[in-house]
């Protein structure tokens, strides 16, 4: 990966972490805004309540901010689980002999049968609702996603001659994986991470809508949609705003993921204008 891109990515990651930290700090500060205050119910947009209040008197703007924190937390947890387990699995599968890699891929296919919702339903009895359930349920489904992507990217590399040359240079498999394979698949992994952050936010919204996600008083965009459903005639903004927030943040992450993916797999064939023998 060239230096300029690497700097951009690190910069972007830092901004994200900073943002998340700011949210984390802001959360306890906004607790009063999440209190139920019937006297403040359904106020329109004003200078005190930038996006108005909902049917429980909670400030909608504060709820959106809080929901952002919840979504990012769950999505990030899911990505850490998914990539933390999936990336090594995919790499191991790509480096292994026939039997081991087939087993890992089969395991992958098996986990694919458990969408986040089903897993959340199943583990609800153990963990109840909350960040843990949501993060774990989405994270488990993320594992085969990452494993499969990394396997696909790394597999063709192991048979290349420069890997054989590295072996002749005395390097063992782990060293080769670290110095040769990993750098070559890193952009693929990063693209997938960004993608899954976006998809994780979507999944969290779905889980929160049905009550399997974060619990009150912590705000959640999905739950906001649920609560707004009965009021779409009176106060449509209560349904529109959280959905917009979800769509915007998902779009941001998937768009970044796309750009990284383009970089990782440049189909610059139109540019190949000189022939080789």
């Amino acid at each position, binding site marked *: 990966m060239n230096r300029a891109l690497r700097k951009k990515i690190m910069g972007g990651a830092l901004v994200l972490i900073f943002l998340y930290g700011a949210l984390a700090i802001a959360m306890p500060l906004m607790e009063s805004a999440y209190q139920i205050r019937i006297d403040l119910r359904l106020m329109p947009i004003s200078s005190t309540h930038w996006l108005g209040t909902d049917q429980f008197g909670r400030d909608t703007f504060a709820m959106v901010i809080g929901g952002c924190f919840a979504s990012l937390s769950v999505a990030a947890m899911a990505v850490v689980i998914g990539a933390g387990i999936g990336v090594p699995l995919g790499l191991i599968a790509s480096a292994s002999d026939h039997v081991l890699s087939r087993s890992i891929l*089969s395991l992958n*296919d*098996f986990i*694919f*049968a*458990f*969408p*986040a*919702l*089903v897993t959340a*339903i*199943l*583990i*609800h*009895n*153990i963990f109840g609702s909350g960040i843990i359930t949501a993060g774990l349920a989405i994270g488990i489904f993320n594992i085969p996603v990452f494993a499969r992507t990394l396997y696909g990217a790394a597999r063709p590399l192991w048979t290349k001659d420069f890997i054989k040359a590295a072996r002749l240079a005395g390097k063992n498999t782990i060293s080769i994986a670290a110095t040769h394979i990993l750098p070559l698949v890193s952009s693929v992994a990063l693209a997938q991470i960004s993608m899954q952050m*976006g998809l994780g936010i*979507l999944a969290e*919204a*779905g889980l929160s*809508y*049905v*009550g*399997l996600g974060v619990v009150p008083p912590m705000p959640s965009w*999905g739950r906001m*949609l649920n609560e*707004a*459903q009965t009021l*779409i*005639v009176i106060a*449509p903004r209560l*349904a*529109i705003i*959280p*959905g*917009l927030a*979800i*769509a*915007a943040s*998902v*779009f941001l992450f*998937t*768009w970044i993921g*796309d750009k990284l993916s383009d970089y990782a797999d440049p*189909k610059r*064939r139109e540019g190949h204008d000189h022939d080789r023998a």
Partner: protein
Amino acid sequence: MLIRVFIQKLAGLIAFLLLASVLIFLIVDVLPGDPAALMLGTDARPDTLQALRHQLGLDQPLVVQYASWIIGLLHFDFGTSMTYATPVLTLIAERLPVSLPLAMLSLALTVVIAIPLGALSAHHHGSTLDRVIKNGLQLALALPNIWLALLLIMIFAVGLHWLPAGGFAGWKSGIMALKSLLLPLLALAIPQAAILARIVRAEIRDKAQENFVSGARARGLSEKDILWHHILPNAMLPVLSVIGLQFAFLIAGTVIIETVFSLPGLGRLIFQSITQRDLPVIKGVAMLLVGSVILVNQAVDLLATLIDPRLRRQSGGSA
């Protein structure tokens, strides 16, 4: 040979289903601790708990519990709901006429939207049309299906009064039934179609640059023939396995969307049983959902093996 392949896939299917059942059993019945206490609450009287345990067969060794559940499943006995005192299978059967068509139709709609759109975009790559489609797809996939559902309700039900905002009158009501399913279908299919269309586009672009396309051109075939007989068939193979994967998403989506539209499907059953800790229902429905995803994926796998000669022929040729 084909029979070998079929047996292989069947064996895989059975193995996965067994493994899934073990997992579901463990997570629902074993891990939480005492299912009886879970259902009745921890401050229930000990003799009530004991009675419930005996009724559920929880005083038996785990293996026996699992075995009786599995054997029951094979006889289509999914156990009895604690809330309704009805066989779980009956409860499921009542709701399938809503959920099953919804899931299948949404898959069909996804494919019907995505493939032509992706192909169109790929064929005109670089043009304004392509760019419009690409950007549109990127936006569409970021839409939460719930929000899309609410927006559709706001516009078409509340605003224009063309379609109902929820509820299902039963298949006997004819057109009304389809009208009830239209908005749910759109909410489900549009984001999934966006994801699939992008993949279709990418695969077609990919295959269009392969050497065999140059070969076909060299043999004097028209661009149209090349597209339909060479590029598309090869592009559809990976797309097929993606469709299989999307089925899992669509199943989960169906369950959630049913809740949005108050459709009397499996969704409502599931969420009620969660609140009421109705373990037999949870186990049964989870097994059904996971089982159907496994089935569909194995079927897709089998289909791919039948179509692709490289997978079919076990005997590899010399280089």
